[in-house]
């Protein structure tokens, strides 16, 4: 088998090893590639930085653990920023796994002195997805009579004066799906709605920002890194950007190399014959 055929049919495990090395090395020895801030993050930051101490924001957890690597850093970055500025966070969950995800993210802040029921709360999950979202966007206490810790939601100080979305200053949702449910159910209630999305869902959601239905978008790990930089709180997301940059370059290299092998092999083939793949 000639060299070109060997390259064309290369064992994919070799490609995977190359990928692992390219991603791992910059995480161990950071390069420090500068990160520019994209327009979507700037818009979201502008909205969130206009909030004052004591304002209330709803965090809506709508992602599963599978999508957590791409979305959770956004939630962490925004949560860190809002808690630092003493903004109160009311957590609700669009899907069942959101309950445990929210508890996991809130736990360190509780240990640092944030008070449950005063500075934050977790109202939990109710089945129904968009139907449930429509209900709790309009009336949190009626949809969640009890929170995840068994407290009556009407007795929580953080929910004093809060019935639904119009009574809070912003709604930030995190999802590994699409932004459409929140655009349909929360945006018409005239509060700023910001979405934390996985990278692949971002193109679908961008028209909603253009139309004004969403106030901003934070997209994937890059969005989290940009937010961390804007809030002067570089963390895990920023640390992963070197690896992401090199990963992108490697992807392009693989595409280019694969095409070079393809065209070289095609040029050596006698005219009139077809390529036979493995």
């Amino acid at each position, binding site marked *: 088998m000639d060299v070109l055929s060997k390259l064309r049919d*290369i064992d*994919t495990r070799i*490609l*995977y090893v190359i*990928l692992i090395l390219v991603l791992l090395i910059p995480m161990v020895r950071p390069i420090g*590639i*500068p*990160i*520019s801030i*994209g*327009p979507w993050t700037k818009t979201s930051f502008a909205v969130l930085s206009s909030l004052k101490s004591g304002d209330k924001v709803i965090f809506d957890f709508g992602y*599963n*653990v*599978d*999508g*957590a*690597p*791409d979305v959770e850093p956004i939630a962490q970055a925004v949560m860190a920023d809002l808690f630092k500025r003493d903004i109160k966070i009311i957590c609700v969950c669009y899907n069942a796994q959101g*309950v*445990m995800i929210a508890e*996991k993210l809130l736990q360190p802040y509780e240990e640092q002195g944030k008070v449950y029921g005063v500075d934050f709360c977790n109202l939990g999950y109710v*089945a*129904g997805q968009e*139907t449930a979202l429509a209900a709790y966007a309009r009336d949190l206490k009626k949809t969640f009579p009890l929170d*995840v810790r068994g407290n009556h939601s009407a007795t929580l100080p953080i929910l004093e004066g809060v019935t639904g979305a119009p009574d809070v200053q912003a709604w930030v949702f995190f999802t590994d799906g699409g932004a459409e449910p929140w655009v349909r159910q929360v945006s018409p209630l005239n509060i700023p709605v910001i979405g934390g999305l996985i990278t692949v869902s971002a*193109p*679908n959601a*961008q*028209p909603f920002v253009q139309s004004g239905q969403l106030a901003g978008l934070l997209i994937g790990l*890059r969005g989290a*890194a940009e937010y961390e930089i804007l809030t002067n709180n570089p963390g895990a997301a920023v640390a992963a*950007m*070197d690896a*992401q*940059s*090199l*990963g*992108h*370059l*490697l*992807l*392009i290299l*693989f*595409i*280019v*190399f*694969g*095409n070079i092998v*393809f*065209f070289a092999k095609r040029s050596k083939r006698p005219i009139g014959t077809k390529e036979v793949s493995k």
Partner: protein
Amino acid sequence: MKRELPLVITALAGLVMIVEYFFEIPGTSIVAKEMQNWAIIVAAFALAVAAINLALIHARNISQKRPGWIHSVFLLASLIITTISGIFLGMDSGTYSFIFDNIITPCGAAFYAMACFHLFSAAYRAFRAKTPQAAALLITGVLVILGRAPIADMISSYLPSIADWIMQVPNLAGMRAITISAAVGMIGVSLRILVGIDRTHLGIGQE
């Protein structure tokens, strides 16, 4: 009657939901909410049926010692332990939290990461400029990948703008076209199911 009854139920249920969505007729929202509750209950029973199917298939694998039967042992053990801890100990118990934090979460994240490896092998194997259209797809794809990378600004300050323009103009136009036509298609499929034209899923009407 066996053929007609499912069609009648489908049509009636669909009509109630459509009327409830568009009109404010007293009583319809109560009926619609009740039907949604029924749907949740039916889904729960469907889950039980599906779980029993899963258990039977894997129990058969174990009893007949089919290749890979040890994996079926792990599956059934995981199913039983997670079900018992979730129902009897509760979601906030240490056991359930341990399973969620140390098994479900890392496994889910690992499989999500696998998409990256598959993407790279697909990039090498399949992203070939075999035709002019494929070449155009490749070139725009490469420009967007580069433009989205944090390193883009170091290569050229135009790259992020080019990537943004590609995503927000031609890409968005194409996606909107597909979305609109798919939406019309989905309404068409839904209406055909409601009026009984499409009946394959009921196992009737196809000869």
